[in-house]
């Protein structure tokens, strides 16, 4: 079958649902494509609360956030295609997708990529030892427990203290699985401070900072995990080895933005976009974790809405940026998004500092924007709202951070 649309949204998670909704609201004829049977992405399995405080001004669980957004989406004219997998996107603005009825094509005017991110796998850590059953990413363990009613472990060690790792530590513990600790190579936790409190300290689960897994052992199933302390250069400190007798290792070692199947757009490693979510290919917009990995679904949905809006305007010949200002990563900035700004529009700048600060001053020059952030950590995203700035001669702005002490 052949379809036509003003805007196609690829990926029906928290970003894509918001994008489709906003594109519809801005007058576009919208198709949303999702490969799973139902929309929501990872929200379906994130049964914990803490979602929606910014976007809905309510503390919701993942499924509640998703169903609320889904109901809003069902009140629009968006055509939702579930169980549909996109095989190809070409430069003639055509998509090819497959579902149980066969192979289909869509001709579109604009595309919003909201493909999210994938979990980094244990194998990418290059840990020596036996290749055994019992090593899962946190997301896989979460899916087994929360959606499929399976118990994947009797005892577990968690590697990586990102939010998913912390939340899974609590989840496994409450499901009667003995969690022997969370191992983090960095000297500070990777996840939000509130999750360290309510997932680990509440249940006395030890957090081993500046520690790393050096070896895994077992016969078919995991039996032992070797852990050592590391110094500030991440070198193993001799005679600090601990051995954990566990049948499972749950990894939460980062997310990688997913940009498939598009190969002709500027990435680094996620899609590089402007403040209006436009990529290097002017008809392709991108939002959420396929650009950079965000702390909160609230930010992802907000970004999705913005991408949907500008994609709809673009498709109706109402949005053409005249000027693009480059955003430069200055001192002590690790992650920065977006990397281009259309100065006629407002901007939400998201950044992560590259180290911990007691009191960080974040500056955007030469615009003279200054912001002080107490106890800034790389794991907590900093947000700066910027008004439009009309300066025809401005080619680039630089964001940097310094310690105020």
């Amino acid at each position: 079958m052949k379809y036509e649309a003003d805007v196609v949204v690829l990926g029906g998670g928290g970003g894509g649902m918001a994008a489709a909704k906003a594109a519809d609201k801005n007058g576009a004829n919208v198709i949303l494509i999702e490969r799973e049977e139902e929309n929501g992405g990872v929200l379906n399995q994130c049964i914990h609360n803490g979602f929606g405080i910014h976007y809905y001004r309510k503390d919701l669980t993942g499924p509640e956030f998703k169903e609320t957004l889904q109901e809003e989406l069902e009140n629009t004219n968006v055509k939702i295609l579930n169980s549909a997998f996109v095989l190809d996107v070409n430069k003639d603005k055509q998509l090819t997708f497959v579902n149980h009825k066969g192979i289909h094509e869509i001709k579109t005017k604009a595309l919003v990529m909201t493909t999210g991110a994938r979990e980094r796998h244990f194998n990418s850590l290059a840990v020596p030892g036996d290749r055994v059953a019992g090593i899962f990413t946190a997301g896989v363990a979460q899916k087994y427990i929360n959606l499929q009613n399976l118990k994947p472990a009797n005892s577990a060690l968690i590697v990586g203290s990102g939010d998913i790792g912390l939340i899974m530590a609590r989840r496994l513990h409450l499901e009667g699985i003995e969690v022997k600790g969370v191992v983090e190579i960095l000297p500070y936790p990777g996840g939000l401070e509130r999750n360290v409190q309510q997932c680990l300290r509440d249940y006395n689960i030890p957090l081993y900072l500046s520690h790393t897994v050096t070896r895994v052992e077992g016969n078919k199933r995991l039996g032992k995990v070797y852990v050592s302390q590391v110094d500030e250069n991440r070198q193993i400190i001799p005679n600090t080895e601990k051995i954990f007798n566990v049948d499972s290792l749950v990894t939460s070692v980062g997310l990688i933005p997913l940009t498939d199947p598009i190969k002709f757009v500027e990435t680094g490693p996620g899609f590089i976009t402007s403040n209006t979510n436009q990529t290097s290919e002017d008809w392709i917009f991108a939002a959420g974790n396929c650009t950079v990995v965000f702390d909160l679904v609230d930010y992802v949905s907000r970004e999705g809405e913005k991408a949907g809006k500008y994609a709809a305007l673009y498709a109706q010949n109402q949005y053409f940026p005249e000027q693009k200002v480059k955003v430069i990563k200055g001192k002590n900035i690790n992650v920065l998004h977006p990397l281009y700004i259309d100065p006629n529009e407002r901007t939400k700048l998201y950044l992560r500092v590259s180290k911990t600060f007691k009191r960080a001053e974040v500056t955007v020059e030469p615009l003279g924007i200054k912001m002080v952030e107490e106890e800034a950590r790389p794991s907590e995203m900093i947000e700066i709202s910027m008004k439009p700035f009309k300066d025809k001669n401005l080619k680039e702005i630089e964001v940097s951070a310094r310690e105020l002490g």
Partner: protein
Amino acid sequence: MNSVEYKKKKVVCTTCPLGCKINVIYADADEIEIVEVKGNRCKRGLEFVKQEITDPLRVVVTSVKVEDGEIPMASVRSDKPVPLRLINDIMKILKETKVKAPIKRGNVVIQNILDTGSDIIATRSVNKKK
């Protein structure tokens, strides 16, 4: 008269994802009296600190088994935070809980669990198996 002991505590507010680190000084007498609170970015933090040093509360989230459902589990939560000290007992009850499809988001699964004044409600809808 008992002598009043002043205690210092660092509390991480779990009300929202900002996770404010709040330093509190309080008098640990028969009735806890807060002397100084620093670091909260909103007034919910103050309420949180008061509760946290007397009887910490948390929202319980888990999933319960569904009979005749399209999927085997329905996620649930407490509609209000419950005392942290009761969470293990609540989990034991919910482990044995079964509900029958169809379930709508917001349906009460258990009323007033362990007399906490909090209901356990479904956080997703589950249709009947076709």
